[in-house]
């Protein structure tokens, strides 16, 4: 467990570098984590993905599969990869304050 200052708050991170406590998360922290992932500004389209992932996590205890995400959020596969280049599921989960997704699909 590592503790770092993000957006003016001292936060605990897990071994994957994701937030250790879901409750620490807020939109400002999301923006700071996005910058760490090379995303300068979170747009409305990013937020559709992030909010969908948080909702799924709260309901099912894991981030959704890419298939479920693209079918139900209204953001298709191509756009998802454009919004979160180099690893959409992993990056979106991290920015959304969730642990690394467990699923394979």
């Amino acid at each position, binding site marked *: 467990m590592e503790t770092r200052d993000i957006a003016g708050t001292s936060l605990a991170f897990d071994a994957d570098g994701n937030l250790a406590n879901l409750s620490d998360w807020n939109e400002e922290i999301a923006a700071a984590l996005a910058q760490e992932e090379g995303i300068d500004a979170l747009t409305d389209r990013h937020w559709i993905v992030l909010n969908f992932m948080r909702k799924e996590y709260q309901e099912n205890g894991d981030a959704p599969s890419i298939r479920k995400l693209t079918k139900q959020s209204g953001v*298709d*596969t191509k756009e998802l*990869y454009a919004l979160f280049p180099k690893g959409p599921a992993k990056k979106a989960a991290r920015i959304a304050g969730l642990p690394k997704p467990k699923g*394979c*699909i």
Partner: protein
Amino acid sequence: MAEPIEKVSIVVSRGSLEGVYPGLIMANGARMEGIEATLFFTFFGLDAIIKKRMDNLKVATVGNPAMHIPTVLGAIPGMSSFATSKMKKEMEELDIPPVGEFIEMIHDAGGELYACKATVDMFHLTKNDFCPQVDDIISVGQFYEMSAGAQIIFT
């Protein structure tokens, strides 16, 4: 720490359901991790990208000891279809898409798909037989050129 994998080239050489899915799952999983992925379909693996066949692949119930059914039972008409529909149901529950949808997903995720020229010639196929996501028909030499710097995985 060891260097992370940046690129994979996955060869799909078999045309049964269980022969095709591992390669697709690995290619999609690579893209999910931000790893470049190229799929190369050869021999019966081509069935996974042939429009008319891709969504009708079957589980092999004969000559497959891991099915744990005697070969004579596996050979009964309808057995392969039965095993296939059971497996597809399990996969749907895990959110694993049908082959056609999976190929489209991998393509939209930036994965590249190629058909093996030698097999295409041998089976007298043309580009029109393949789903639109197939980028090209290439020789084994081109495959190696494209795989520069990649890990090659044979399935």
